[in-house]
């Protein structure tokens, strides 16, 4: 595997009559699992089209896995897998047949395609169902088949468009854990989604775009800043805790039934612990308050729709 960044966009602009879909994007994305979140515009579909070489940028350059998409779109597509959001599977064929045919379409010899199709269907958890026509599948099974056809060609990067759409909470969990595992197989992921919670769970890196402009691009962990506040849940005894903390010199307020304490260093953690213990209060929760990606996004994108 080369050491080129997963994606390199240089001054990427795409204009359609009347609307600028992407505006002067410049970023480097590392290999791994990247979340793509967009607001106010069709930036996500445009981005995928540009990555697949199905549209030409108005200005700027796109490089995927070190290959210039404009110069060699076929070469790029040989290394990509794509899982669209909409229904896209032939309904009268079996999952096994469809995945192996798409393996051949990715350039694999017929026997290898069939082999890999079987392996990948195992991986996504389709057992005997794979020999039934797709027309009879539930949403969860269809999503898994869509993912399987994206993986069968052993891509370097797989593009996922809202992979958890339409799935119930359990299905979503299963899909997200599948996506999380892709990283360990050496496959990078670019997942476009509206659910920041999914991104926070699964992605190492997140890119946010608002109306075609880059809002933020950074490691998920680094974006979730520490706030210098510690949240304590002592049930219904919040007032008593605040009073006790004040008497020990720690400032705190009650928000939404939880006590938020301003701390300065880990020593203060011990002080909180002792205060709770001495007062005989139940310690249900103790955590350093992190911002959520939702808050990061809303704050940085100006919050207006």
């Amino acid at each position, binding site marked *: 595997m080369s050491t080129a960044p997963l994606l390199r966009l240089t001054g990427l602009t795409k204009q359609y009559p009347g609307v600028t879909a992407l505006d002067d994007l410049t970023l480097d994305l590392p290999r791994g699992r990247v979340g793509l979140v967009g607001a106010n515009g069709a930036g996500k579909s445009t981005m995928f089209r540009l990555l697949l070489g199905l549209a030409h940028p108005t200005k700027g350059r796109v490089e995927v896995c070190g290959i210039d998409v404009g110069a060699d779109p076929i070469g790029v597509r040989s290394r990509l897998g794509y899982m669209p959001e909409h229904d896209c599977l032939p309904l009268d064929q079996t999952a096994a047949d469809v995945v192996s045919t798409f393996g051949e379409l990715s350039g694999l010899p017929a026997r290898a395609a069939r082999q890999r199709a079987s392996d990948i269907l195992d991986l996504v958890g389709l057992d005997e169902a794979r020999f039934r026509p797709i027309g009879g599948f539930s949403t969860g099974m269809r999503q898994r088949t869509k993912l399987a056809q994206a993986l069968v060609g052993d891509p370097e990067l797989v593009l996922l468009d809202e992979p958890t759409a339409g799935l119930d*909470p359990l299905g979503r969990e299963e899909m997200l854990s599948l996506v999380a595992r892709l990283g360990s197989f050496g496959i990078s992921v670019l997942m476009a989604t509206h659910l920041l919670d999914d991104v926070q769970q699964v992605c190492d890196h997140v890119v946010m775009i*608002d109306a075609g402009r880059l809002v933020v691009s950074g490691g998920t962990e680094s974006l979730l800043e520490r706030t210098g506040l510690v949240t304590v849940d002592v049930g219904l005894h919040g007032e008593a805790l605040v009073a006790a903390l004040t008497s020990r010199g720690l400032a705190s307020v009650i928000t939404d039934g939880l006590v938020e304490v301003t701390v300065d260093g880990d020593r203060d*953690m011990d002080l909180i*612990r002792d205060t709770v213990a001495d007062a005989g209060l139940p*310690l249900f929760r103790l955590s350093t308050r992190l911002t959520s990606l939702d808050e990061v996004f809303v704050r940085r994108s100006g919050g207006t729709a």
Partner: protein
Amino acid sequence: MSADDELIDDPALASNATVEVGAVSVWFGPKVALSELTCSFGPGVSGLLGPNGAGKTTLMRAITGLVGVNEGSIRVNGRDPRRDRSVHADMALVPEDEAVPAGLTARQFTHYLASLHRITDREAPEIALRTVDLLDVADRQVDTFSKGMRQRAKIAAALVTGPQVLVLDEPLNGADPVQRAHLIELFKHLGAAGRTVIVSSHVLNEVERMADRVIVLVHGRLAAAGGHRAIRDAMDDTPRHVLVRADDGRRLAAALVGLDSVTGVNFDPARGELIVLTLQARELAVALPRLAKHASVRLLEVRPLDDSLESLFRELVR
């Protein structure tokens, strides 16, 4: 306690109920969509949850009169939505599918619905459009909208009639994070203003934020009802998991094992994390800081793992 008091204490029944579902069964041929379901909804936001195929959409359509019930009764403000057309003036459904009328702009769509319901206030459609943030694209055709925008258009069309009961099936589908945040605030606001808002969604952490109570359906039957923390407390035969991070996890683990309230401890040395299993969450919560202080172990994080709606759901549906 009298029988009446017990009935009122049933979490499946809301106080000041506007929508009452009484022992309702609905089937389509051999498939039973709802099975002897009894619950009610009142002012505020109620979340309707369940796996795919559990009957949520059928329940919504039954409440709004689109589908008849085979057994039992549904009453909206005392009237039968299937027979009594006057109910529809007070109620609106925003379904999940993407179908929107072709050829109409957003503005025309809301005005059309206002006139259908004989709303003479010319401002009402404009207010509805502003509420969902579609004013600046109000003159574009709805069939050119993205999925999220179509949803908002449909919500505006539902709001324009000023309904007392609002039923929404996956209303946040396709909306980007900013729109989602706005819509969640909108629903909370509507609920606080006294409207009965029934929302179904698969994104549980958002339901947690919006809804005061939840109704969980599994295979057409009621699996749980009420506030999610209260539901969690009601499930007292399953052990809770509490995650604890400390500077000396091993010593803390050794001390915890000695507690009566602890049924098990998993210690992960690589991450310095403990997962403590307990059937007595409160006893553990009181004992933990004392134990830590006594052993001079610094607590860095204490977090119940099954507190969320997600984990509750997982338990219920298993």
